[in-house]
C-alpha cells in the first residue's frame, strides 16, 4: 500500500475542489448548475473533514470520529439545501421558463 498519503495532500486536493466549485458558482449561469457547484464545494469540505479525522486519530476516537460525524451532518445539510433550493428553482422556473441567473437583475432597477 506504500506510505500513506499525507493529510496536506488531501487538503490541497479538497482546496482544489473547493476552488473549482467556487469557480462554477461564478461562471455557471443556469441556477441549477450553480447549485451543483455549491455541492462540489460542500464535498470539498467533507473531504477535508475526513482527511483531518484521520490526522486526529492520535488524539483518540472521540476527536477523530467527530470529524466523520460532522461529515454526516453536512450531508444532511446538503440534502436540506437541495430540497429548498430545488423548490425555489421550480417556482422561479414556472414564472420565467429560465433558470439563468443573469436574468435575476430586476430588483436593482
Amino acid at each position, binding site marked *: 500500500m*506504500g506510505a*500513506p*498519503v*499525507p493529510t*496536506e495532500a*488531501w*487538503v*490541497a*486536493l479538497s*482546496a*482544489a*475542489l*473547493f*476552488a*473549482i*466549485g*467556487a*469557480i462554477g458558482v*461564478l*461562471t*455557471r*449561469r*443556469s441556477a*441549477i*448548475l450553480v447549485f*451543483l457547484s455549491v*455541492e*462540489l464545494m460542500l*464535498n470539498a469540505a467533507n473531504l477535508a473533514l*475526513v*482527511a483531518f479525522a*484521520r*490526522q486526529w*486519530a492520535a488524539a*483518540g476516537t*472521540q476527536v*477523530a*470520529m467527530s470529524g466523520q*460525524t460532522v*461529515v*454526516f*451532518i453536512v*450531508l*444532511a*445539510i*446538503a*440534502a*436540506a439545501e*437541495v*430540497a*429548498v433550493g*430545488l*423548490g425555489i*428553482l*421550480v417556482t422561479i422556473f*414556472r*414564472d420565467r*421558463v429560465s433558470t*439563468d441567473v*443573469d436574468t435575476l437583475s430586476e430588483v436593482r432597477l
Partner: protein
Amino acid sequence: MLVFIVLSVVMLIGAIGVVTLRQPVHAALSLVGTLLTLGVAYVQLHAHFLAAIQVIVYAGAIMVLFLFVIMLLNLGDEGPVTPRLAWIRPAAWIVGAVTAAGIAAAVFADPRVLPDAATIAAVFTGSGVEQIADQLFGPYVLSFQLVGVLLLTGIVAAVGLVQRKAVTSASAQGRSVGASGRTPPKAPPMDAGATSAGTRSRSSSATAERGR
C-alpha cells in the same frame, strides 16, 4: 500515493466538467463521477461508512433528484454569454487558482505528522458505523436532533413554495380559460382589493388541500 494521484486527477476532471460542460445533464453526470471518486477517497481515508453513504445517498439519491429536476425543467444549453459579465469567467479562474494555491500554501506551511498506521487502525475499526453512532447519539445528540429540525424546515419550505404555485396556477386557470400551466402567470392585479385577494387565496388553498 499512486492511488491518490489517480483519484485526484479523476476527481478534478470531474469537477472541471461540472463547471465547464455546456449541457446541464452532462455537468450533473460529471458531478456524479466526482462524488463517486470521493467515495473511493473516503475508503482510502478509513471512512468506510461515509464512503457508503456518499455513494448511496449523495451520488445516488441527491444527484438523481438533481437530474430529475434538470430533465423535468428540460434545461438545455446555457445559451450565449451575457456580454456584461463575460469578464467573470477568466477572472474567476484566476481568483480560484489563487485561492486554492493560498489554501494549499497555508496548509503546507502548517505541516502535521500523520499518526502511524497502527494508531489509525486502532481508531478506525470496522466500517465506522458504530463509532459514528456513538458520536451522533452521544455528544452530538443535540446536533442530530437539530438535523431533524433542519430537514423539517427544508420540507416545509419546499412544500410552501411549490404548493402555492399549484394554487396560483389553479386560480389563474380558473380565471383565464385555456391558459397553460407553463405560461408564467401574472401577479394578481392590485386593484382586486385586499379582502378579495385574501379570500381567494384562502379558498383556493383549501381546494389544493382537498386535491392532495
